[in-house]
């Protein structure tokens, strides 16, 4: 297992929703838990992944994610079982969309 932590400062968008979980920790899949939390406008992402040594790719996927959403005061926790970058992006977007839906 490998733990990777990312923090993006000065986000623009607050979700303000109850915690949301999407996805399942199964082979080639992951679960994404999104919680609203006072982080001084930052977005914090913690990844626990079974696939060791892919930190550079995770960094790129997280950078893209941050550019898409610019989240503030948001904590994201991920349990991953070897999902591909495309699946990771899809699940993370799905989780944020679930939050936006819930906050309506």
């Amino acid at each position: 297992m490998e733990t990777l932590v990312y923090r993006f400062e000065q986000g623009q968008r607050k979700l303000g929703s109850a915690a949301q979980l999407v996805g399942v920790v199964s082979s080639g899949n992951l679960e994404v838990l999104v919680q609203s939390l006072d982080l001084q406008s930052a977005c914090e992402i913690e990844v626990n992944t079974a696939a060791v040594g892919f930190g550079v790719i995770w960094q790129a996927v997280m950078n893209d994610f941050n550019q898409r959403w610019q989240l503030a005061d948001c904590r994201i926790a991920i349990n991953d079982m070897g999902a591909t970058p495309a699946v990771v992006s899809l699940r993370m977007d799905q989780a944020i969309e679930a939050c936006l839906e819930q906050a309506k």
Partner: protein
Amino acid sequence: MSSYLEATARQRVAALISEFTEFLPPAKEWTSPHLPQLNAPVSFDDGVIIGRGTVDGKQVYVAAQEGGFMGGAVGEVHGAKLVGLMRAAVIHKPQALVLLAESGGVRLHEANAGLIAVSEVMRALLAVRAAGIPVIVVIGGSNGCFGGMGIVSRCANVIIMSEEARLAMSGPEVIETANGVEEFDSRDRALVWRTTGGKHRYLLGDCQMLVADDDAAFKAAIVQGMQDSIQSEVALSLAALEGEQEMLTARLQDLGNKIDPMDIWAAMGVEHPEDIAILDTEAFLQLTASIRQTERQHG
């Protein structure tokens, strides 16, 4: 039609249960203490969702196992959540406890903690029944319901299955590993399904209801199961246990020498047992209505 088989545990709860409130939701992050020691990933709900809600306007307590996470296997936290839900049910007396089961049994990574957890679940389930609350088990996931959870299921008042669902003690691979491929070929999917699948279980009376793989059909069956339970004895009784023992003895006597489930169906009076596998649920239920083994006493 919305497939129950294809859905995740969370999707199943959303489809079947109204006004759902989750106990110990994933944000609490009650994860397995054992898996990190083995360098294995954890899940924020440890593979089971518990909570309360309503079905057809009636208050129910619900648990749903996620087959995608370690095959729905029961670890220490997973089991403790099931036990806690059942103990809460005894206190708060919902109209039923609904268990959406999908599990390979004990999570072997957690060894004794998992084994103890499963036995505690059995005890808690019987306490729920003793409190007069019917337990309804729904099996319709691709991982089936095996091992300790197979036993737990058979402790329930009502079992609802789909044709795609499987219910047994040892899984196909386990039997093949222990007794050889001549005894049981785990890659022979037709054999696996006619031995453990919903149709066979229904014919033998091991499950009470067989439904198509559809959320609405499962939901209707849960409502029916709750209604049926009102008229029957919910708590486990000695008489019911003795009845079960008699039924099993007779089954062994009458059918114990049959090699293949198709031989059993033929002995039960199915004219063309080779056709059973391809019948859709509706046609199967019509064809077998008169020959199905009498429903076991609730017990």
